[in-house]
């Protein structure tokens, strides 16, 4: 027998109730406080009386529950579109997980990669080396990705390669002219201008909306929100603070065009304790069609730093299965077996090009030369003072330790 789920006048009904009643766990959950199920129509149907903030969440929770209990179910025409929408998102996610994994593990040497390379070669003035191409392909195909490469690895070029591919690909996921929104520190803006020119061979139409007057910013938003795609620049540069203050207008902008949202120096959004920039990024994330994070130091303080990054990347997916407190705990204990879990879960979503990738030792062997340079008088004075001070402190600590130990032995 199949359990039927109906959505009538905004309320969810399950029938026949006997199917739920036959399973003790299911009955407890459906009739419990989470769903607030009540038996109606002579106990043949169950009405879910609990009001969920978002009805689709309720339908999806039901689906998850029925799957868990291996119960045959059928969402009727009224409930089905919500579930189907989720399922197609889910399918997209699964596909991208698969792709991202294969691309970076190098098992794809596919027609898609060859096409990607040809698009980049046709549009780019700068020549990218293989790892950069692979990283760009990973970013373009996984749609949402992080690049944790070291400075100098060409993170910006990789983003622009991915953007260029989206812009030119005949059957890409994004519209043919996606809007690139780059959020970063003010000091990074000039570098993005230069990178653009370096990659595409001519200056781009990059609009800065931070460091400008409010009236200029207002005019920009009014213009693009009224005139639409034709008024859009190729890219918008802004500071994290602007993202926070202009959050609502940015959300509207995401409705005008497909947006590729890049958070540069993404460690600025890692704060899980009411970080306001972080919250703004997380709020904006679901509106962007493609999300990219760039930082060379993704987790300077431990696993907790990763929480927001992957929440931003896939807002609806629970990529990191742990909450911030647990992540902090596993950072303290190096043998924590959950570390493996986290590393595995995130590995497919990021690329890291390290120095050894940029300058392979076999091609550029390191040669070490040493030259003794005497200290200047001022340096020497400071050095000796610190050294003497350290010695005093250390000696005192040692004496205290020894005294303490001999006392406790007695």
């Amino acid at each position, binding site marked *: 027998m199949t359990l039927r789920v109906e959505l009538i006048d905004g309320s969810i009904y399950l029938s026949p109730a006997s199917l739920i009643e036959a399973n003790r766990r299911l009955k407890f959950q459906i009739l419990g406080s989470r769903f607030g199920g009540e038996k109606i129509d002579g106990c043949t149907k169950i009405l879910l009386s609990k009001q969920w903030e978002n009805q689709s969440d309720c339908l999806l*929770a039901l689906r998850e529950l029925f799957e868990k209990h291996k119960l045959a179910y059928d969402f009727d025409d009224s409930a089905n579109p919500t579930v189907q929408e989720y399922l197609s998102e889910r399918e997209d996610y699964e596909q991208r997980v698969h792709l991202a994994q294969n691309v970076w593990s190098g098992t794809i040497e596919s027609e898609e990669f060859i096409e990607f390379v040809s698009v980049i070669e046709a549009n780019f003035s700068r020549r990218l080396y293989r790892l950069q191409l692979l990283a760009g392909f990973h970013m373009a195909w996984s749609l949402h990705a992080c690049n944790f490469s070291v400075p100098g690895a060409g993170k910006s070029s990789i983003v622009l390669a991915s953007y260029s591919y989206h812009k030119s690909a005949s059957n890409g996921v994004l519209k043919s002219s996606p809007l690139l929104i780059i959020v970063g520190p003010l000091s990074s803006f000039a570098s993005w201008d230069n990178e653009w020119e370096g990659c595409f061979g001519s200056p781009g139409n990059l609009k800065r909306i931070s460091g400008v007057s409010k009236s200029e910013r207002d005019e920009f938003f009014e213009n693009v929100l009224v005139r639409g795609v034709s008024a859009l620049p190729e890219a918008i540069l802004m500071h994290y603070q602007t993202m926070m203050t202009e959050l609502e207008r940015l959300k509207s902008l995401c409705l005008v065009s497909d947006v590729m949202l890049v958070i540069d120096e993404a460690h600025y959004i890692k704060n899980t304790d009411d970080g306001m920039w972080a919250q703004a990024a997380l709020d904006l994330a679901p509106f962007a069609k493609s999300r990219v994070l760039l930082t060379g130091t993704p987790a300077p303080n431990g696993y907790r730093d990763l929480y927001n990054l992957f929440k931003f990347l896939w807002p609806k997916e629970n990529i990191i299965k742990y909450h911030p407190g647990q992540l902090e705990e596993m950072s303290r204990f190096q043998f924590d077996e959950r570390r493996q879990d986290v590393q595995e879960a995130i590995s497919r979503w990021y690329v890291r090009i390290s120095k050894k990738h940029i300058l392979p030792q076999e091609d550029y062997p390191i040669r070490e030369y040493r030259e003794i340079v005497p200290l200047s008088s001022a340096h020497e004075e400071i050095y000796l003072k610190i050294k003497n001070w350290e010695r005093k402190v250390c000696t005192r600590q040692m004496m205290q330790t020894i005294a303490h130990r001999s006392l406790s032995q007695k």
Partner: protein
Amino acid sequence: MQTDISLSAEARKDKLLKELEKKPIGTKELRYKGQMVSLDIHRLDLKLLVFNELNGRIGSHIQTHVRQYGQISEEVRQVLIQRFLWDSNEARNKKTLKNLEAKGQLEPGIITRDGVIIDGNRRAMLLNKLASNANESEAYFKAIVLPDVLESNKKEILRLETEYQIGADEKVQYGPIEKYLKCRDMSAYFTTAEIAEMMALKTPEIEKYLGIMELIDDYLKTIGCEGLYTRLEKTEDLFINLYNALRMWEKGTGKLKWNPSASDKDDYRLVCFDYIRYTYNHKNSINPKDIRESLICNSQNGIFSHERVWENFRDQHFEDFDEQSEESLEMLAKESVDQNVGLDKIAKRRDFDWAEKAHSRIQKNWGKARENVANRINAQEPAKLLQQVEDKLETLLELDYSGKVLPGFLEQANRIRKKAEELRNNAREGMSA
């Protein structure tokens, strides 16, 4: 209450209104609807008054009775409340009875204009009892009369009742379950902050009470004892623990090693309910302290803390306890030889039977799960110690002892090195084995 049942409710109210037209015996100021008002005190025949069913504990007692016997008359209703109020704290009632006998009613109660006793239900019951003991046909109650009838101003009257209950030293304080019931009743009319103010508590405390009440109601519903709060005597602790653990996990501040879904937490609650039912209904059950340490707890030693341990424990539990329904209390009451036995006693007997049947299965699964938790924790112990040793060596290195002459330092460092090598060799052997 010796309510005059020869009168209909309307006639009783009319008669009361006539009584209230008589000259009051005094006045008293009290805070009502946000301001101090001076209200009349009347000495009224208790036959014209009724107990307040808005009071959570009285109301739920009546509901239980209605569940067993169907609708009951006003007279039975009042007799039931009278008996319930006496039984709910007999020792204290006996003491107050003596006081009332010696000194009479010193403080007036509070009633609504339609004769519902808002404050002084217990004293009214005792005055009735005194009159009955003395074979007197009439009993009188001194009461401040509110200007409103109960139905028209439930919210204000509930507020007044609460503030009176909290403010008076002489009153019987809320019992463990009663305070939760009270909060739940209040929450239909007031915000959490308002309830907190009235009960002289902090808002999070009220949120906690409401959360615990929800768990209690859920538990009673699950075991087919909805509204039978008397089944919960001395079981409060485990519900508090359960609430605290669930709350911590909701906030993400708990000590779980994994991140359970809402459905996992529902499974957990159901298992906990089974263990609560077993623990309090079997003479050789698990010690509640052990349940607090190993199941209903936010601890790394808890069965729920370790995903795989929990899954095995849960699956075995639901395999053992997949029975769908027990005979309902009403059905058992009908089958009972003694037709006067209360639902409460029937429920108790049914719980005992259930616990007896569950005993061996629960003991087996419980022992296994605890062993699995211990194994997991022990397995992590060497790694933890190794980490501590490494941290300590790091500290020593940061202090830079090199080159300093410390008595026995070199010998000790050598011993540490040899032990570290031994550990390493053991580990290598273990890996190659």
